[in-house]
């Protein structure tokens, strides 16, 4: 299994209506056997990135190497990459089983071994019963699994999976997620997985690459991404429900550090909650963006006062929407709480749960009291 190095890769599509800069100066290293999830909103350049790695689109700039060999100028057949396509793209005149086995034809494996592989893969993906059917006569979810199977049965240096489970219902997705992770680990597959599902990314990936507008925003482990987002975009993009963000005026003295948010609410902390370096930085930064995750915004005693606008028990957690000086913030509580609409509540947040971002650039300044 090989290491993938993407070095300053750009993708510019030229068309009559003008140029689209779909991927901008992308740097990404995927270690041998590592599973990386590519996460980002629709149109941010995820598929474009995969297509450049697979060789269906030329790189406009930069280099891609796989296992130390530059591959960006090679034809797709010579790259040793397997891919599951966003639109399945099964070959209509072949059955599901034939679709999966034709990927093995050029592998020179013994016939019996090929058949066994297809059968095992079909069982893992729960499509063993439709191997003799044609793509047009099976459901979208089945086609999607067949397409995933076609990519995974092959021996490849790198597996590219473009939204491989988007069509499946949550239960099946959860089951397959576990099996696929086991399979990828067992075969030590270097994998890039595109997904819109953060749970899937968290569950499957060793590291997550967050993209937006063609730019890599952050590349980190799931835990780090959540605890130390590199900028406002990743902060708000990762996490469900999204992070509450306020702009705040900072006043840092020797004893206390206070943030005054729009509407006049002041959050004040003893200076000892913040590192020396952070206090120094804040003294020079009068205005910041303050991010607070809904899970960290606790109902009870606290400086943030507001009125409840909605309160929903979701079966395992409660979402409380609170109007604070004309802005809606969301608080999540693990217990079942019920607050009538219109009632007054107070909210509190600990210094270790604060995310501070530069108000202008959006880049992270500090997480939980220490510099980012």
């Amino acid at each position, binding site marked *: 299994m090989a290491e993938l190095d993407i070095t300053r890769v750009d993708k510019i599509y030229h*068309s009559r209506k003008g140029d689209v800069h779909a991927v901008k100066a992308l740097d990404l290293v995927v270690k041998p056997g590592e599973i990386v999830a590519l996460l980002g909103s629709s149109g941010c350049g995820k598929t474009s990135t995969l297509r450049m790695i*697979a*060789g*269906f689109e030329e790189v406009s700039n930069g280099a891609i190497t796989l296992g130390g060999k530059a591959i960006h100028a090679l*034809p*797709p*057949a010579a*790259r040793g*990459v*397997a*891919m599951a*396509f*966003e*639109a399945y*793209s*099964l*070959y*209509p*005149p072949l059955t599901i089983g034939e679709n999966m086995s*034709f*990927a093995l*034809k*050029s*592998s020179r494996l013994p016939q019996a071994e090929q058949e066994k592989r297809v059968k095992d893969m079909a069982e893992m993906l729960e499509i063993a019963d439709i191997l003799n059917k044609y793509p047009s006569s099976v459901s979208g979810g089945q086609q999607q699994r067949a*397409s995933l199977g*076609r990519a995974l049965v*092959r021996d490849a240096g790198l597996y590219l999976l473009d939204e491989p489970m988007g069509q499946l219902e949550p239960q099946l997705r959860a089951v397959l997620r576990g099996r696929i992770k086991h399979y990828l680990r067992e075969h030590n597959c270097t994998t890039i997985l595109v997904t819109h599902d953060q749970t899937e990314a968290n569950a499957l990936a060793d590291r997550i690459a967050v993209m937006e507008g063609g730019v890599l925003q952050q590349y980190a482990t799931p835990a780090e991404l959540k605890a130390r987002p590199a900028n406002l975009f990743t902060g708000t993009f990762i996490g469900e429900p999204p992070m509450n963000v306020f702009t705040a005026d900072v006043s840092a003295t020797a004893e206390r550090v206070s943030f005054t948010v729009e509407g006049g609410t002041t959050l004040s902390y003893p200076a000892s909650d913040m590192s020396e370096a952070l206090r120094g930085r804040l003294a020079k930064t009068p205005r910041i963006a303050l991010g607070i995750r809904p899970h960290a915004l606790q109902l009870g005693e606290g400086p943030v006062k507001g009125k409840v606008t909605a309160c929903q028990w979701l079966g395992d957690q409660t979402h409380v929407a609170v109007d604070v000086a004309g802005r809606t913030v969301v608080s999540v509580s693990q217990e079942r709480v019920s607050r009538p609409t219109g009632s007054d509540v107070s909210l509190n947040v600990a210094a270790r749960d604060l995310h501070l971002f530069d108000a202008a650039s959006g880049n992270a300044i500090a997480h939980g009291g220490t510099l980012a």
Partner: protein
Amino acid sequence: MDHSSSLEKLLRSVAITLVLVFFLFPIVWIFLMSLQTNETILRIPPSIAFTPIIDNYTALITGQLRTAAGSLQLNFMQNMFNSVLLSVCSVALSLVLGVPAAYAFARFKFRLGEDIAFTLLSFRFAPALLVLLPLSLYFKTLGLTNTYIGLIWVYQLICLPLILWIVRGYFEDISPDIEHAYRIAGNSWWRTFTRISIPLAKPGIAAAGLLAFIFAWNNFVFALILASADKQPVTVGALAFVTASGIQYGQIAAAIIISITPTLALALYAQRYLVEGLSMGAVKG
């Protein structure tokens, strides 16, 4: 409900019958003519009561045309052979050139691509006669006048645009990722084109080929001007029936029946492809 649907059925059969009569009548009439002598054809008033003869067919096949003014040599079978040769070779060449070109236009966006494709289509806009006069001069200089190669070449004006545009639409309908999936599994571009793209576009290719064949078969002016009797197809050869002693209606009718047989047979055989191919590829392309 039941009542209205049976009425509907009746009306539909009536409408279909009318359409069939309208379109088949000329063919049936010609077929009847081909079994009569000139005298019975031209009698007044016309009648469909006659004793069928096959002299017209034998005259065509043996090449002996007997008229009131005497016996005349005919090379109808040579014309027939020319028609087959010219149409088959023209369509074959057009497919060899046009299918890869259609694929290129469908898949690769290159500079001037659209303009080139449109120029090829525009060959169909120009009146053939306008093209022919300058062309006949060039053909003389190049020594291509009255050669099969020269004719097959000009027939590309008919066949190539047709194949290019129909097949292109068909290729455009095939998701590129189906090809990509095959290529990434270790297959070359060419192998993917021949193993995946062409089989998937087969109905479109068959339909386009058939249409091109019919257009080539029915062409008249190119061979009239660029070739002489021994290289001319049936469309031009039929002129021989206009003789000094009158028009040989019976033989013309027999010639028509013989000459529509290949295209008709081909069209019936490929009917399924034709409908599928034209309604799917061409409309979108």
